[in-house]
């Protein structure tokens, strides 16, 4: 703080932080949270011991917008491309001030009645809601939603405890908040009408701070020299997105980075004696190689070689898994074809780190067979009481 020349409590660098105070004057004492000019009450909602986000300047900016929008009873509207942490930032702020946040994924089937029900529930509970991909809702429905939100806002401004909403008198709590996230410019998205725009404070979230996030997450996963590794990793992703061929299914966004970091963490804990560089390289290879076309593989290995010159990349040893897969393939009167076996293993690895997986390939490239073989293999290994619980 001294380096940043923060000397008074009114300095912006201090004021912009999320600060917790105990205030005796509000009915018997209560915890309040201040950020810039905003002043919110602590929500006392227990969320469990969950992991939190890495705080970057971008999250800070998003939080300032949200908290100050709430202060004047508006909502916030983080907008930007996929995987920049719009929803996660909102959820994390809700965690920070201990308020439940309902994430709802909007679609074009959503109608005004359903939204009315959602809002009335939220008003009564005083929860936040984060409406994901808000601009997928039809424009006719959006204008009704604007009306509903305006009603709620009027009630909040008048500090009512009861108000008339959608034909019913309902209770309202002042912790209510609505936030919408959207990706402008994607297929099937509409522009928000002006009367809705004024109810939300916009905040642009374009490029997340990959370096900082990677560094802190690597430290959190137990890596020693995370600073250098994170720099190299970010560089690798940048080079890959620039040099490899352009494919629809290639993605080097934040989610990809995060899955690599989680993978690296579990690898590190499984083999604590390995060199850290090696662990990270293995994680990056395991996470990325499955999706590459054949022509891009040499390019990717070349990039890895350039960034980690002295590291020998050892081929992975799958032991039991590989032999069982080959067994299953023969049992089903199919041919043991080494590249195919590798694909099955890659599918298994991807399943371990991701919730949703896509098998991409032309007709007849063996997509169905690939997952069927893996399914049978995993069942067989489970029945054989393999010591490894992942099967």
């Amino acid at each position, binding site marked *: 703080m001294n380096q940043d020349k923060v000397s008074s409590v009114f300095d912006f660098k201090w004021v912009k932080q999320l600060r917790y105070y105990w205030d005796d004057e509000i009915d018997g004492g209560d915890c309040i949270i201040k950020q810039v000019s905003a002043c919110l009450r602590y929500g006392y909602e227990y969320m469990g011991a969950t992991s939190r986000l890495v705080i970057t300047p971008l999250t800070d900016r998003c939080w300032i917008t949200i908290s100050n929008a709430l202060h004047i009873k508006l909502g916030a509207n983080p907008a930007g491309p*996929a995987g920049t942490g719009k929803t996660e930032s909102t959820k994390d702020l809700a965690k920070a001030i201990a308020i439940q946040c309902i994430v709802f994924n909007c679609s074009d089937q959503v109608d005004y009645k359903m939204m009315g029900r959602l809002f009335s529930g939220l008003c009564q509970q005083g929860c936040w809601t984060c409406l994901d991909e808000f601009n997928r809702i039809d424009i006719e429905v959006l204008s009704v939603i604007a009306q509903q939100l305006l009603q709620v806002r009027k009630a909040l401004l008048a500090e009512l405890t009861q108000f008339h909403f959608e034909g019913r008198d309902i209770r309202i709590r002042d912790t209510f908040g609505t936030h919408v996230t959207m990706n402008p410019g994607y297929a*099937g998205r509409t522009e928000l009408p002006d009367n809705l725009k004024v109810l939300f404070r916009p905040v642009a979230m374009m490029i997340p701070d990959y370096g900082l996030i990677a560094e802190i997450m690597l430290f959190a996963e137990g890596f020693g020299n995370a600073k250098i590794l994170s720099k190299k990793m970010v560089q690798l992703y940048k080079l890959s997105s620039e040099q490899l061929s352009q494919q629809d299914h290639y993605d080097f966004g934040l989610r990809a980075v995060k899955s690599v970091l989680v993978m690296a963490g579990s690898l590190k804990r499984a083999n604590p004696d390995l060199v850290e560089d090696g662990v990270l390289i293995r994680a990056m290879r395991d996470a990325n190689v499955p999706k590459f076309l054949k022509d891009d593989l040499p390019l990717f290995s070349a990039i890895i070689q350039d960034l980690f010159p002295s590291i020998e990349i050892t081929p992975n040893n799958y032991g039991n898994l590989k032999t069982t897969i080959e067994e299953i393939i023969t049992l089903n009167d199919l041919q043991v074809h080494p590249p*195919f076996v590798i694909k099955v293993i890659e599918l298994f690895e991807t399943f371990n780190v*991701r919730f949703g997986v896509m098998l991409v390939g032309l007709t*007849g490239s063996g997509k169905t067979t690939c997952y069927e073989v893996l399914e049978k293999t995993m069942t067989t290994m489970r029945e054989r009481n393999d010591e490894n619980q992942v099967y």
Partner: protein
Amino acid sequence: MGEMYGEVNEVSQEWKDGLASKVMRNAAKELDEDRTWVIFDGPVDALWIENMNTVLDDNMTLCLANGQRIKLRSQMRMLFEVQDLAVASPATVSRCGMVYLTEEELGWKPYVKTWIKVFFAENAAMTEELKEQLWNNFEFTIDPGLQFIRESGVEPIKTTDLQ
């Protein structure tokens, strides 16, 4: 869309579950620790897969149009089988892990081998030697043949080696 995720019946104003929501609801109801895979076969379209967005990221909830939210178990996995992702939005692509299967890697040979093995399995007249001979004939003719067609002929419809 209504068949997939469910819709409100206009006449009776009742909610009727769709295919996907039903499958997921049943899968989410199971209490044991078994792994469950939900497999979607067929082309991905931005229209229906966008509804999966909250399913595929950390929230793991399926949001239906009537405001219901189905919380899925962490043992569940979604698998999509698609030919390409030309119409999927980046929001979906970034949420999924990808495994790309190249047809050059597989080629036509494993198919023929399996065919020889299965088709003549019951046939006693087909000795190992004859099978070997048949396989050699395949190997001898197909690759140069395909090469010839592609170099000096015209393919009205583009084909890959496999077809």
